[in-house]
């Protein structure tokens, strides 16, 4: 036991810890037959897995502690210590995951703010609007008109999101995995090519740089193909993360540009309510989806999730017959920095769910839930927490809108509010052990801070800095 702690705790390095564990057990896996080895592997993985320690002891956990105790030959009274160690590890690893999520969110926000400050044309739309927000808010309309128009726009938008989610659930329920896979691939295709093209051209227009079409297409082609490969297939984790963040930034910029002012706020409010309903209510589509996935031991969908850590594919003895499963076994022995997320494309296991449309409406219907991956018997597991890409997008929209105001205090306040919301959500996640929506708390804090800071704090602080009064 002590060597377990020494090696893994102090170094805070999941990978090394996992590697060490796996090396310790690999011999066992290879030596023993499949079922028992999978139990062993799940055991060892489970120990590192933070959440499980909080669950009431069921058989599996009992097995875990027993196994561990057996392995190390320590008496059972050390179970107590084990719990405490696990709690300590929970805290450490939980906190580490939180911080690991802070970093990409911060990077995404910085990227969005930088793009908005540099490329002025993203700050407002020149009259064009998305088809999901048909009502055009004219600045000369009365406030009442603007209000109902924005509510109508946001409702239509949410309606589209709901419809897409339901369609995705139906496709999932009836096992049209290929359709879903194709849908997701098409949506990332569109993001990586079309929206990147728009971004690049706006960038060049702003700085008056001239480029010929051939060079542009070559660049774009390379960029897009690498992105598709990194997200959907194999590639280094860091590359996948970068591309996912880039696609979130593109989406957020498009929304900031084309959504009218009031509609944006009403939409943010509505989408957090929808998130809450969809994940927590018994009839919520996402909850249904999670339960269906659980019952099928399915995995989450690729290219819709940002994962803070690696995902291990320990899968052996896989039940599902989907053809994509074949890839899994071939990756069995690769435990390093393979981007395990890409493996998950080839399977449909796991409990996490992010919906993403493909096609023209794809980007709008992101579902954001932070979930714990339900620990399954045979298949792979994921460590760490995942954050849906839609969460990134809506956070970026909020902070992007704040940066357009020109007041950096508002930006900082929204930033802190969002991070605290994220933190709080993760704490609740650790406490409740079930899928939780990531948007409501963060957006709630974020919206409150946006309006209050902009309205009240901004003049206050303007006065203070003008007179150089420090409080």
């Amino acid at each position, binding site marked *: 036991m002590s060597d377990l702690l020494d090696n893994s705790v102090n170094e805070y390095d999941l990978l090394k810890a996992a590697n060490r564990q796996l090396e310790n057990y690999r011999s066992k896996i290879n030596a023993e037959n499949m079922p028992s080895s999978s139990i062993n592997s799940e055991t060892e993985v489970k120990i590192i897995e933070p959440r499980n320690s909080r669950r009431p002891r069921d058989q599996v956990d009992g097995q875990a502690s027993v196994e561990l105790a057996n392995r190390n030959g320590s008496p059972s009274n050390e179970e107590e210590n084990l719990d405490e160690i696990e709690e300590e590890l929970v805290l450490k690893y939980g906190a580490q995951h939180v911080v690991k999520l802070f970093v990409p969110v911060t990077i995404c926000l910085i990227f969005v703010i930088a793009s908005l400050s540099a490329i*002025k044309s993203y700050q407002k*739309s*020149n*009259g*064009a609007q998305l088809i999901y927000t048909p009502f055009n808010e004219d600045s000369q309309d009365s*406030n009442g008109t603007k*209000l109902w128009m924005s509510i109508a726009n946001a409702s239509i938008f949410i309606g589209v999101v709901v419809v897409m989610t339901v369609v995705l659930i139906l496709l999932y329920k009836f096992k049209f995995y290929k359709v879903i896979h194709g849908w997701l691939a098409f949506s990332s295709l569109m993001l990586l090519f079309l929206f990147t*093209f*728009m971004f690049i*051209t*706006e960038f060049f*227009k702003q*700085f*008056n*740089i*001239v480029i010929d*079409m051939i060079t542009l297409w070559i660049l774009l082609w390379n960029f897009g193909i690498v992105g598709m490969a990194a997200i959907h297939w194999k590639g280094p984790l860091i590359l996948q993360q970068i591309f996912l963040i880039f696609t979130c930034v593109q989406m957020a910029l498009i929304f900031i540009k*084309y959504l009218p002012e*009031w509609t944006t*706020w*009403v939409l943010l*409010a509505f989408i957090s309510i929808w998130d809450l309903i969809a994940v927590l209510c018994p009839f919520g589509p996402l909850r249904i989806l999670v339960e269906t996935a659980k019952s099928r031991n399915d995995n989450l969908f690729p290219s819709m999730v940002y994962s803070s850590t690696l995902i291990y594919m320990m899968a052996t003895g896989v039940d599902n017959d989907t053809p994509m499963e074949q890839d899994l076994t071939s990756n069995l022995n690769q435990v390093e920095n393979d981007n395990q997320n890409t493996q998950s494309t080839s399977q449909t296991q796991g409990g996490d769910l992010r919906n993403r449309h493909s096609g023209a409406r794809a980007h709008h219907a992101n579902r954001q839930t932070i979930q714990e991956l339900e620990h399954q018997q045979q298949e792979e597991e994921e460590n760490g927490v995942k954050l849906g890409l839609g969460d990134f997008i809506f956070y970026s929209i909020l902070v992007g809108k704040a940066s357009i105001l*020109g007041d950096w205090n508002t930006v900082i306040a929204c930033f802190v509010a969002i991070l605290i919301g994220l933190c709080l959500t993760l704490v609740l996640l650790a406490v409740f052990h079930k899928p939780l929506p990531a948007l409501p708390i963060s957006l709630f804090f974020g*919206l409150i801070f946006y*309006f*209050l800071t*902009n*309205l009240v704090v*901004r*003049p206050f602080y*303007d*006065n203070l*800095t*003008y007179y150089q009064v420090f409080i």
Partner: protein
Amino acid sequence: MNTFFFFLSVLVRTIISDLNKERTYVNLLNTIPCIRRFNSSHQIGCGKLDYSSYEGIVYSVRDKAEFGRLEKLNKLDIPDLVVVTLPSYFAKIVQLHQHDSGNSRIQGIVLVSNLDYISNLTESDLNLSDDSTSPNSKFSLYSTNKTYGPSEWNPSGTNFMFQNFNIPFYTIYDLNEIEKVIDECYDKFNQHIFDKYTSNSFSIKSSESLCGMQLGLRMTGAVSSTVCTRRSNIMHTLESSSFCDPLGGSNYFTFLSQRPSNDLPITILSARLDAFSLYEYFTPAANEPISSLIGLFGITELLAKQRSQMNYSSILVVLFDNEAFDYGGSSRFASDLVREKFPEIKLSFGQDQEESFVLKKNNITSIIELGQLGAIGFEQNENLYIHRDPISYAKEPNVAKTIKQLTDKLTKYSSNIKPIENINQQLPTSSIHSFLRNNILIGGISLADFNKEFNSKFYHGVFDTPENMNVTFPDDLSEDEAVNFTTKFAEKLQGLTTSIAQTIFSLHNPTQTELSEQVSLSTLNRLVYCFYKNTTCKYFQDMMTTSQWKSYLTLLEANLPKGKLSFYTGVDDNPISGKWLSSMLLRYFSRNLDLESLSEDDCSKDSEKVRKYERENHISIRNFYYVKNSTCVASSIFLTSSVSPAFDQFEKGVLVETDKFPAWTESSWNGVDVQMKIFMFTRPSIAGLTLSLGIVTLVLAFVLTFLADKFAHRIFYPKDAEQNEIFD
């Protein structure tokens, strides 16, 4: 709740803005830049395309000494300057900069253009015409003609409009802002530093603070109209955006006869509608085109009264737009006629079905154009001169016949209208060029106040003002008195325009009756007052409905300088105050007098009375509006596009026939970065101090924190605690 806060936030934002920025910068709002334009092969204008802001230390040139100093300073290696100058030195400074524009220290030139400010100074010369010495020569009849060649109509032209500068030019015209720049910025901070300049060296100490100016100018666009059009056509976002917009607006025309017809001989009476200057929208335009417009309206009013008698010919009154830039509007008009693509006009003669009418070139017999008329306001000028094209006069017999007829009649009716002395003299800038170039070989004359060269020194410049036309009003007149005040200009104009009207009346007239009435002097007086002195006069207001008046006021405030009429050519969907006003005046003066006294309810197309009138007289009236002094203005004005035919396929990204038609575009800039600010430059000593303090603090902080972290357990632990540690 969010929306409630939004209400409040908007309110609060208007109360408290960014206070620090207000402390740092003084925003000068009433400033006008020189913008970038393109023609089919070149670009003209100010500022570099990929730069958006130009900063420099303010330097003012108000007399010879300061200019001399600038000449010498420009050769030294000093920080960049922004020169604020009086008009008398403007041309010299531009030349100073252009002489060695790569090494020039001048980063921007600001022209002071407030006449009151300038007239109080000793150096009160005004800068001259911004146009070239031969305006529109590339698209005139003589551009490729070896015998005639371009002629120097505009000797005081500096050609600044058509050059390409790499620094921005701005003009300030508001007295308060001029004082802020010159008194509170230059005199207070910079003057004593520049005064220390000796003949060999100049340096600015690091402890001196200087006042500087930032000129923002962000222009989009590309090398020329051709390239720019092609690039604009590439669609890269959900919305289409173009880098350059074709210049042009609308030509307005109306038939003074009872109805539009191709059967009667058509005489065109035309005038120009637009002007330009180096600074966008800033076109006082007193001589060109307002003076000709006043004359045109006087004649129109008179002839409209004779409408019922003039059933032997069709008078087509046309206001050509987009003439200042190589005759874009008239080439459009002429090419449409030639290619039979003239837009269809729908007429309904009181019936439900409509007929359509298309103007054809066959029956157009002559063109009488009113050119610059302003110089007659001076004592010594009495005459108008008849200009015509010598080439067609010599070659085409019917042209010669028409011109002879017109000349004879005009000289008959007025002793002050004379033909030009040199019969081989070219046709000056005139819309007739487009007709003749497009093979519409009809006799056209252009009546203008000059003989061999323009009288006005300020053609197409910011100083083409009424004062320079000798049109002034005594100070102590009330509005009612001023409206009826007869200027010399109006007085002489009355006689001349009456003669012109008589000429037109007698053209094709089978009977020998002459026009007995005269052009109304009170109309001319009112027009002179309202155009030159008070653009929001009651006379104009009485010609418009309340909503039209509101639109007019909005248009006056829409562009800088606010409150002044602008006749700039502009881009397509942008109504400009002066041109819009002219179309309203044309409507008013060409109104059908028989229907003038209809009541408000009857003053509409659907009214029974009107339809009956239309049926009985077989005429068609398009626009109706009812005006305050119980006048129903029923008129038929038509408009056609005045965008050059080269842009017929603009949406496809190509220009057509650019050798035949002009292809002027303007950069589609937006007003965000276009502004002028003054501020203090950071003292180098303070900047250096801050940076060094900052770097020292940063390095020190890292070092200290690192050390503190390493030895934390020694520094922060109580002595006895260490022992406890070991035992634990």
